[in-house]
């Protein structure tokens, strides 16, 4: 049924739903998630649609739920997420839900109002308590000051405080009035300044901070406040001070003048606070009970309401039949799933108890259907890689299928190191094995989310890096001698093994291939002996460079081959003859030939004549330049007799392909257009695959008229200039692309080299220092921090950063170098109406 090779075959369908059954049917379709509805009234405003009232009621219910949720969160009650998925409730249940929510909201509001009032009361009392306590100290100080001033004759009048001075002359609290209150701490400076300005310095302000923050009854925030007491003289000042206090939102409290009254009041306040505390805790308990009960159901309620809302949104996209008895919908759905959709409709009709069945008719259309690639959790990530570039045109070859292997492979070519591969593999493996737990946790970290959604890609990338690492024989940049090296240190002069003395004594020893190469080739990958040789890089560079070109050109050939499959499928013979064939010839003449030469060079030259082997790069350049010098150095000599003639032929053939690609198609099209030949064939291309015409039913409205096999007549405006320009661009892009893309694949070698070198440097500069230390036991201690440093850098730089860079390059090679050969990517995604998707992205309308 579902294949990754192409997107699903889609069809446009018309649905006739009985008014009473429509809700149940759409709900079933939403559970199924295989149908994409089209908006049949795009011109109608959101608020003029049929079910706008229901949508509005859902909005209202959602608002209440959000309110409840907020309250639940505020109290830190865990919300039960059972993960079960209730069906969309029937429309009549909506009223029950509404009533439930209404009741809960009102109850909550009432509780909140009560507790707010209580809290305000509590706050006032607490503030009063603080005022009484703090002012007591003020008065005590004043008292002290007073007595000091009286008893200490040494104090001069200047040193006396305002209050003391005043008190001394007029008797305390006779003429001085005062107000006491509480104010937000951050407003004190401005408050003080304004008091000073307005009263021209004729007031005395004392303030003290309240140590523990108080709770604001409205917002529930903890706020810092201060107690203040202002002394002043006269009624006019009093009214001003009061106004300022009001302006700064300070709360004033009555404060008795005599200490005894104050004490009495404080006791009264304390008892009232005690009483309030019990009442408050009871209110809190009640609130808690209500919320716990709501928390148990709130997730399910959210799902239910959202489902109802989604259904009515969908119903709003439908047309009403003339008779008002049924709703007409249009939708895209996969042909393979028509049966399941029919079943869902039947279930929906049964559930609603309607006697008239819902009808699903396939329609003919000129519109391009959406692209629907069936994916599972494994293929999804790869499909995403492709879709990020562009969604495939309807039914064109889907590169995601090949990307599954080629992407991790090309990545691994650049990232090849067994050690790093193991880290990556194990990380991804952990994600894969624990995926259920991790999914259930719903981690909201964006970066982690990226890694998690690409876990299967990373898994394969790790596995392939393991493999290429073995090939390169790199394990954290060190080679591993698994099978025993094929080389043995034999002195080419004497034909004896080097003695230990010679080995230790000389820096440079040459191993001659003739004598030192004792057994057959190393069974797998690079012989470990190379890791010790000075020309290791030269050798691996040569191999990796050639491998990159071979891999690259093969992938491009494959891409061009896929364009053949596309042309065949869409019946565009003209594309095969005027594009595919010259493209293959062009690519082969230049780079296919190069690959053959690479293999020839590998197989025909032995160690004895490697020095005389021709240089491939210069050979290729000379081939294009037609430069064949008879007396040239050995590096540019031909491989074989008749090479000159053959190469000239190849280049001329390649050049001949350029005008073929360029001019053939546009002129042929113009010719056909003018003389009307093959016109029909041209057109059938557009809809060639749509459906089997014999089964096609073209239904207009409810007339039920059968019009089988009627072709959609798409008479495209023929515009020669446009076609020609397009073809020119295409041709130039392809020809230049072949060259630049081949060069571009050399990044496989370059990154692989960079990665190997970087890990080698890290080994040498960090861990090696510890390993080579000569201090006996001390070295063992040193190695611990050095290893930690090395390990951290390995993971951060070599695995994560290098991994990201190799990932990006692999991505580019797929998007640009590979897909440009065949992939149009002009489709649009199939977005079915599905409750599941809707829950994932908490809906926004």
């Amino acid at each position: 049924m579902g294949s990754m090779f192409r997107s699903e075959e889609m069809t446009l369908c018309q649905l006739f739903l009985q008014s009473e059954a429509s809700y149940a049917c759409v709900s079933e379709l939403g559970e199924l998630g295989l149908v994409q509805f089209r908006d049949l009234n795009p011109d109608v405003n959101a608020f003029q649609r049929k079910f706008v009232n229901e949508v509005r009621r859902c909005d209202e219910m959602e608002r209440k739920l959000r309110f409840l949720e907020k309250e639940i969160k505020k109290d830190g009650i865990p919300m039960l997420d059972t993960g079960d998925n209730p069906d969309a409730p029937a429309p009549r249940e909506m009223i029950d839900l509404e009533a439930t929510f209404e009741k809960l909201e009102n109850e909550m509001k009432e509780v909140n109002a009560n507790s707010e009032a209580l809290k305000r009361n509590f706050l006032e009392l607490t503030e009063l308590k603080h005022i009484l306590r703090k002012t007591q100290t003020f008065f005590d100080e004043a008292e002290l000051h007073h007595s000091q001033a009286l008893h200490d004759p040494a104090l001069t009048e200047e040193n006396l405080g305002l209050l003391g001075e005043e008190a001394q002359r007029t008797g305390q609290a006779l003429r001085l009035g005062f107000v006491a209150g509480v104010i937000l701490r951050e407003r004190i400076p401005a408050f003080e300044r304004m008091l000073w300005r307005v009263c021209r310095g004729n007031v005395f302000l004392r303030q003290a901070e309240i140590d523990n923050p108080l709770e604001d009854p409205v917002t529930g925030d903890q706020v810092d406040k201060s107690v203040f007491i202002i002394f002043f003289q006269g009624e006019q000042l009093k009214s001003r001070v009061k106004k300022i206090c009001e302006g700064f939102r300070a709360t004033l409290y009555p404060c008795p003048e005599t200490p005894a009254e104050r004490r009495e009041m404080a006791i009264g306040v304390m008892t009232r606070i005690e009483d309030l505390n019990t009442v408050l805790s009871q209110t809190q308990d009640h609130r808690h009970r209500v919320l716990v009960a709501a928390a148990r159901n709130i997730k399910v309620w959210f799902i239910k309401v959202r489902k109802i809302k989604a259904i009515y949104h969908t119903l709003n996209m439908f047309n009403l039949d003339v008779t008002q008895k049924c709703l007409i919908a249009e939708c895209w759905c996969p042909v393979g799933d028509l049966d399941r959709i029919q079943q869902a409709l039947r279930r929906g009709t049964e559930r609603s108890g309607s006697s008239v069945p819902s009808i699903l008719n396939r329609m003919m259309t000129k519109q391009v259907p959406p692209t629907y690639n069936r994916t599972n959790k494994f293929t999804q990530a790869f499909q995403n890689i492709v879709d990020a570039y562009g969604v495939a045109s309807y039914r064109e070859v889907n590169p995601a299928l090949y990307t599954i292997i080629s992407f991790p492979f090309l990545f691994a070519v650049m990232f090849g190191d067994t050690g790093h591969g193991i880290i990556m593999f194990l990380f991804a493996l952990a994600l894969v094995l624990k995926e259920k737990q991790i999914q259930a946790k719903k981690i909201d970290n964006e970066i982690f989310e990226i890694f998690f959604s690409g876990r299967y890609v990373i898994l394969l990338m790790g596995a392939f890096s393991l493999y290429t690492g073995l090939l390169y024989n790199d394990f954290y940049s060190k080679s591993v001698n698994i099978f025993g090296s094929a080389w043995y240190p034999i002195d080419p002069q004497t034909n004896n093994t080097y003695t230990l003395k010679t080995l230790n004594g000389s820096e440079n020893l040459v191993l001659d291939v003739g004598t030192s190469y004792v057994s057959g080739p190393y069974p797998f990958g690079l012989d470990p002996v190379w890791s010790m040789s000075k020309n290791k890089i030269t050798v691996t560079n040569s191999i990796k460079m050639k491998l990159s070109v071979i891999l690259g050109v093969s992938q491009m050939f494959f891409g061009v081959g896929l364009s053949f499959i596309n042309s065949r499928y869409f019946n565009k013979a003209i594309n095969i003859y005027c594009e595919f064939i010259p493209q293959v010839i062009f690519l082969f003449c230049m780079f296919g030939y190069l690959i053959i030469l690479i293999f020839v060079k590998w197989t025909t030259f032995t160690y004895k004549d490697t020095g005389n082997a021709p240089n491939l790069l210069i050979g290729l350049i000379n081939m294009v330049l037609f430069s064949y010098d008879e007396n040239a150095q050995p590096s540019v000599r031909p491989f074989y007799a008749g090479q000159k003639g053959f190469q000239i032929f190849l280049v001329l053939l390649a050049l001949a392909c350029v005008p073929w690609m360029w001019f053939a198609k546009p002129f042929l099209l113009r010719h056909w257009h003018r003389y009307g030949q093959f016109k029909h064939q041209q057109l059938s291309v557009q809809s060639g695959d749509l459906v089997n015409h014999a089964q096609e039913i073209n239904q207009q409205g409810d007339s039920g008229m059968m019009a089988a096999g009627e072709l959609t007549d798409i008479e495209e405006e023929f515009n020669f200039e446009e076609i020609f320009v397009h073809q020119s661009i295409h041709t130039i892009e392809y020809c230049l692309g072949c060259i630049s893309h081949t060069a571009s694949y050399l990044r496989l070698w370059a990154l692989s080299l960079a990665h190997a070198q970087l890990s080698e440097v890290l080994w040498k500069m960090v861990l090696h220092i510890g390993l080579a230390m000569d201090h006996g036991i001390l070295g063992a201690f040193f190695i611990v921090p050095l290893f930690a440093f090395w390990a951290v850098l390995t993971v951060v730089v070599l695995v994560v950063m290098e991994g990201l860079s190799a990932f990006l390059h692999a991505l580019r090679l797929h998007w640009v170098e590979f897909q440009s050969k065949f992939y149009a990517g002009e489709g649009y995604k199939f977005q079915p109406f599905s409750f599941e998707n809707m829950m994932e992205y908490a809906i926004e309308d």
Partner: protein
Amino acid sequence: MSAYAMPEMYFNIDHGYLEGLVRGFKGGILKQADYLNLVQCESLDDLKLHLQSTDYGNFLANEPSPLTVSVIDDKLKEKLVIEFQHLRNHCLEPLATFLDYITYSYMIDNIILLITGTLHQRPINELIPKCHPLGSFEQMEAIHIAATPAELYNAVLVDTPLAPYFIDCISEQDLDEMNIEIIRNTLYKAYLEDFYSFCSELGGATAEVMCDALAFEADRRAFIITINSFGTELTKDDRAKLYPRCGKLNPYGLTQLGRADDYDQVRAVADIYGEYKELFEGSGTNPGDKTLEDRFFDREVQLMKNSFMQQFQMGTFYSYVKLKEQENRNIVWIAECVAQRHRAKIDSYIPIF
């Protein structure tokens, strides 16, 4: 110094992000199509439903039905303030000062609102919610202790950035309606002139755009003051002192305006200036005609839109706030018409894009 010679060159280093942001915000301003939809609304809930599909998103989603116009108004203001505060919190000098300058005009309005309210014996708690949140300041709520302009200055305004503007208003007269109006206009005059000189000092494209905008604002005030002064006790000399002197009317037009006795004479002054001539010609008091005020708003919207044509300048921030304010007026107007079922004049909003 080169930064002063060519501020555009270095603009993006400090303000590039915010300019991008404000241009993004501007993209969310309602289009003509949205207004066409809005005026078809039958109820405020319809309005809410449509606004949900615009950049406003679900800014009303947590408001219980039935909605009222004042709730919509508050929410609109709140949204603008959140955006503005975001810009203000992330900006560097001189943009920070520039944005502060924008808030000063709201502060002036708030002060006047509070004084007028206190004059009419309204409790301050009732007045505070009516103040524009962009122009609130710490000492604002204590404003009712002042009985004379001198007290107002000494007690309240001396700590605010408006203090220098107030110097000209200090007198021991009582605060009455006339005086308040004079204070408002004097403050505005000083504010506009100060803002104008600040922008010209910034130089570059900012000066180009902003001086135009502020000159227009100054001229509009001069016209409106003159027209409103007919039939009041305001003497011509006092009136002339209220004209902001940074507009295009300065100096000749202002002298002429100072002598004007009736609407026709004002019109004669406007006739000398091409751009104002148009505005006066298109306005009228007959049904179907646009009022002069609306014509000025039209012109303002046009100016503000044009300021987005230039990059690397701060005029965009000013324009954004002004356009958004106009949009809020439009929405509130439409909401008001919808709520009162008074559809005849629903179309006299001022479209922006």
